[in-house]
């Protein structure tokens, strides 16, 4: 009986995780519509290209999201100070995109670090859609 409760609890927590990433996507969808009246939706393949796109930073170094998060989001990455970053793919790391404040904090920092500007809601949504699509 106790096992059944455990399984039930596990089931609901897994549900909750998938749900929080998708409810976050809904929020970005509303924002994206405000940014662009012609918004048609988020696309995992655009998110994939965004994740890998290398850009020449004004400090002279080439950077992309993959610089720290590695080219394969199922694998752990590394910060510039050599600390491990847990995998970004939601199938591997269900904690990802479950805490809105944390997500916004890191989009805020990392977009400025890589793009030297804030990310648009479209870019954030495509990015999450890509990381949700990885099995």
């Amino acid at each position, binding site marked *: 009986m106790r096992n059944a409760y455990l399984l039930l609890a596990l089931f609901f927590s897994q549900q909750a995780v998938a749900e929080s990433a998708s409810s976050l996507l809904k929020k970005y969808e509303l924002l994206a519509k405000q940014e662009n009246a012609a918004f048609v939706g988020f696309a995992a393949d655009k998110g994939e290209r965004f994740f890998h796109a290398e850009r020449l930073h004004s400090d002279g170094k080439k950077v992309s999201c993959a610089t720290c998060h590695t080219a394969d989001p199922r694998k752990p990455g590394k*910060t510039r100070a050599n*600390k491990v970053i847990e995998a970004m793919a939601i199938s591997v790391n269900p904690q990802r995109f479950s805490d809105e404040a944390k997500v916004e904090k890191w989009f805020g*920092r990392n977009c400025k*670090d890589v793009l030297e500007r804030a990310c648009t809601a479209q870019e954030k949504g495509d990015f999450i859609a890509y990381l949700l699509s990885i099995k």
Partner: protein
Amino acid sequence: MKKWLQFLVLITSISATSALLASGGFSDNSKQAMPAVANAKWKTECSGCHMLYHPGLLPERSWNKMMAGLDKHFGENASLDDASRDEIARFLALNSADKQDNRRSNRINQSIAAGATPLRISETRYFTSKHDEIAASTFKRKSIGSAANCVACHQAAEKGDFSESQIRIPR
């Protein structure tokens, strides 16, 4: 000397030595080590990109300067909301090297010139004097990265423990 007397002397000296060892009588660790400190905000916000640096490693003026420029933190953007930043800044100041009485923090503090406000522990004179036998190429190893990655060699660095029994340099 009689055989039994020799034996008695041997036994008493062994037990005296172990008692001394057990009591830590050879060195006074209590004032050497940095005290345990805790703050939940500090722990989550200052450990995302690197190890957690004990506040006793830098003086208050260094932490204040660092916390006032988090948007340009060693080439990265580590900015925080104002409430989190203020709480962490207060915690760091309260437990900083010049507010503590342990030998390690005192030495670090003394090695910094009064007019200087270093942001790196790894650039203080105390640090360089303790690591002058380590080659620059060792710090650059893939398993280490830089001198700032204390925890690669000092297993208990996040607790502020840099004692020699806790050192292992990775290949």
